[in-house]
């Protein structure tokens, strides 16, 4: 544990040092910096750019462009302040390249926004956020800016190039103005008001060429107008009709776009390796496809199954298929849904929220949800669920009825344990359950679950009832002072099964065996990811730690107390692929055999 504490300390220090060292400079390639904005900064372009900005950028950069959008608490770095002089010290070509290319977490907008839209949004950004005192760097390379102000009036602020008055403000053309520097400025005059002779001559030539081109254009236009009949200017109604037609066409195009079927395949997978004391080391793998189909707006079908590899006692191997979800859900209204089939049991939140290997931050399940589970995974029955928004908080609820668990009565190794994989009702008595959750503030959820059913099979001499309860809490605060995000999750489960006598006649070779059957267990985990660190490699690491416990009556088969301390390091290859390395310190009662400390390695994938 000393080693673990030292590791965490070193990691924190490294994270803080790196965060304090400032962001890596993001510089556009020189070639792209020379790109010219082909769209004039007209009111129409600004309006179109505003639409693009409000739909795509405002959630991160904020209404005022200050990099304070709603999503900032969840972003690993702070978005750029679009009113910053540093931003406008760059050329439009550089901004265009950055918007097009992106850099995590800023998306790559090239496949999403048309080139014209990206230029429009630059025009909007310049008109709205750029410091009013600046000139505009249309395509001057970054090196030109410091040259332009060097030895100038001495004013601080953005390094800008002021457009020389000698050059006419042309309608819009190539604005190539590198190296606008005066060699000898008169006293009292700003250097940026002058250009070299060579620059002036070149600009004058360009001006002359443009003037000729413009004259030619006027002649062609005059000729064209003479040939084209005069038409009535479009009215607002015509524009609206055209807009409606365009919207209809857009919808039609979307409807025939690939991926329009309301059928979706997702799921998860893992590849693992476990080296455990007193056991042979082994590789493992699993695949869990998830099939979704939404044929109408208020009907959803879900199906999922776990494909697993098993080694049988006779050393042969087999592949298992466990159906974990096969249900239909009907959305009655915004706060009520009903469904039926095989569904993930909303008892606690581990199975409903956290158990897919690309979401679970550890390579195995916590003890109460593992091989000796005391909580149900899936149930077969009917359910009602929904959510109710109250002010800034939310109440969520789940109520269900199912075939219920089955208490094992004849297996000498597991008598008294509950089996939740029983798809037939063995006693004509349904189980009922509910969970109510409360989300008082964003990123914090608490819940309480209860599950009750008769678990003894028909013909068993005792009537055995099972009452399960659970509490859960999860919280994910962003802590800029520690340059990262914490993830806290905890659950505790109580399983109260009626006292009974198993194998009362001794026919199964282990009875009569009677014991009080009260079990409990849970887990507490805390993880830290340095999401504010600018180095992407460091940012993708996550330190994970967990304590879990399971207590089973000593007299019960497989009885005894087991607890584990797990510490590990995850590396997020991308948002849905994680490489996990865990070490588990195992402590268990002597009745459960020697402690089995374990080293686990797992690649978890979300499909």
């Amino acid at each position, binding site marked *: 544990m000393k080693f673990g504490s030292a590791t965490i300390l070193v990691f924190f220090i490294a994270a803080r040092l790196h965060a304090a060292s400032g962001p890596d400079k993001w510089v556009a390639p020189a070639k792209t910096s020379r790109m010219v904005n082909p769209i004039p900064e007209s009111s129409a372009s600004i309006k179109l750019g505003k639409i693009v900005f409000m739909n795509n950028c405002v959630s991160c950069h904020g209404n005022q462009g200050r990099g304070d959008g*709603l999503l900032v608490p969840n972003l690993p770095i702070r978005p750029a302040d679009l009113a910053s002089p540093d931003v406008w010290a760059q050329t439009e070509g550089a901004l265009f390249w950055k918007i097009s290319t992106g850099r995590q977490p800023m998306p790559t907008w090239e496949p*999403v926004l048309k080139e014209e839209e990206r230029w429009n949004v630059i025009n909007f950004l310049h008109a709205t956020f750029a410091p009013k005192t600046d000139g505009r760097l249309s395509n001057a390379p970054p090196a030109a800016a410091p040259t332009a102000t060097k030895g100038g009036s001495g004013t601080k602020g953005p390094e800008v190039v002021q457009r020389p008055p000698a050059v006419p403000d042309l309608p819009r053309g190539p604005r190539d103005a590198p190296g606008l520097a005066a060699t000898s400025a008169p006293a009292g005059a700003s250097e940026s008001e002058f250009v070299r002779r060579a620059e002036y001559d070149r600009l004058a030539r360009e001006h002359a060429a443009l003037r000729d081109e413009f004259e030619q254009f006027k002649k062609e236009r005059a000729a064209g107008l003479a040939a084209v009949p005069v038409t009535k200017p479009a009215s607002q109604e015509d524009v609206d009709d055209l807009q409606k037609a365009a919207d209809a066409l857009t919808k039609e195009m979307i409807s025939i*776009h690939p991926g329009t079927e309301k059928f979706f395949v*997702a799921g998860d997978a893992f590849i693992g390796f476990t080296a455990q004391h007193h056991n042979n080391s082994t590789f493992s793998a699993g695949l869990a496809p998830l099939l*979704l189909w939404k044929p109408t707006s208020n009907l959803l079908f879900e199906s999922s199954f776990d494909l697993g590899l098993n080694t049988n006692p006779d050393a042969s191997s087999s592949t298992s298929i466990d159906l974990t979800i096969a249900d239909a859900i009907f959305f009655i209204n915004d706060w009520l849904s009903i469904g039926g089939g095989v569904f993930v049991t909303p008892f606690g939140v581990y199975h409903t929220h956290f158990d897919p290997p690309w979401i679970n931050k550890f390579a195995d399940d916590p003890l109460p949800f593992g091989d000796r589970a005391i909580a149900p995974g899936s149930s077969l029955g009917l359910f009602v669920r929904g959510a109710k928004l109250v002010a800034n908080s*939310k109440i969520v609820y789940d109520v269900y009825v199912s075939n219920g668990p089955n208490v094992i009565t004849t297996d000498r190794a597991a008598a008294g344990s509950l089996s939740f994989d029983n798809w037939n009702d063995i006693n004509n008595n349904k189980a009922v359950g509910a969970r109510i959750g409360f989300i008082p503030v964003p*990123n914090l*959820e608490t819940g309480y679950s209860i599950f009750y059913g008769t678990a003894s099979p028909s013909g068993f001499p005792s009537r055995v009832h099972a009452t399960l309860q659970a509490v859960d809490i999860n919280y994910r605060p962003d802590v800029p002072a520690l340059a990262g995000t914490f993830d806290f999750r905890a659950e505790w489960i109580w399983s109260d099964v009626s006292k009974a006598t198993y194998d009362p006649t001794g026919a199964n070779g282990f009875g009569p065996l009677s014991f009080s059957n009260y079990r409990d267990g849970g887990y507490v985990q805390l993880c830290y990811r340095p999401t504010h660190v600018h180095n992407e490699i460091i940012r993708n690491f996550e330190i994970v730690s967990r304590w879990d416990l399971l207590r089973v009556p000593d007299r019960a088969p497989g009885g005894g107390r087991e607890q584990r301390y797990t510490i590990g390091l995850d590396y997020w290859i991308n948002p849905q692929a994680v490489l996990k390395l865990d070490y588990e310190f195992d402590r268990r009662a002597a009745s459960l055999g020697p402690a089995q400390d374990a080293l686990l390695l797992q690649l978890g994938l979300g499909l």
Partner: protein
Amino acid sequence: MNAAKLLTRVSAIIALAVLPMGCSSSPESSASSQPATGFLAALAPVHKTGAQIWAENCTRCHNPRPATQYSPQQWDVITSHMRVRCNLDGEEQREVWKFMSGV
């Protein structure tokens, strides 16, 4: 054991108190009723944008996936699945769908 029994009783009280609240109104009836005032007005849901709902709900459990990874139709199916899995309100599901689809 005592803690478990206490929790059983607490759960019964919570169920009796809260579930009727969730079943006592419908969108139609609330739309046609008079605007709430005072304490009831304070309980009215705070309107949130799709981006805000996405940030508050999705990232609590898993890393967010890029919006461009799926088509609007696929996002409709995915957000409906997540509505079931993590108890999103219908309005929340629609807002998140709009946000992820760029609609």
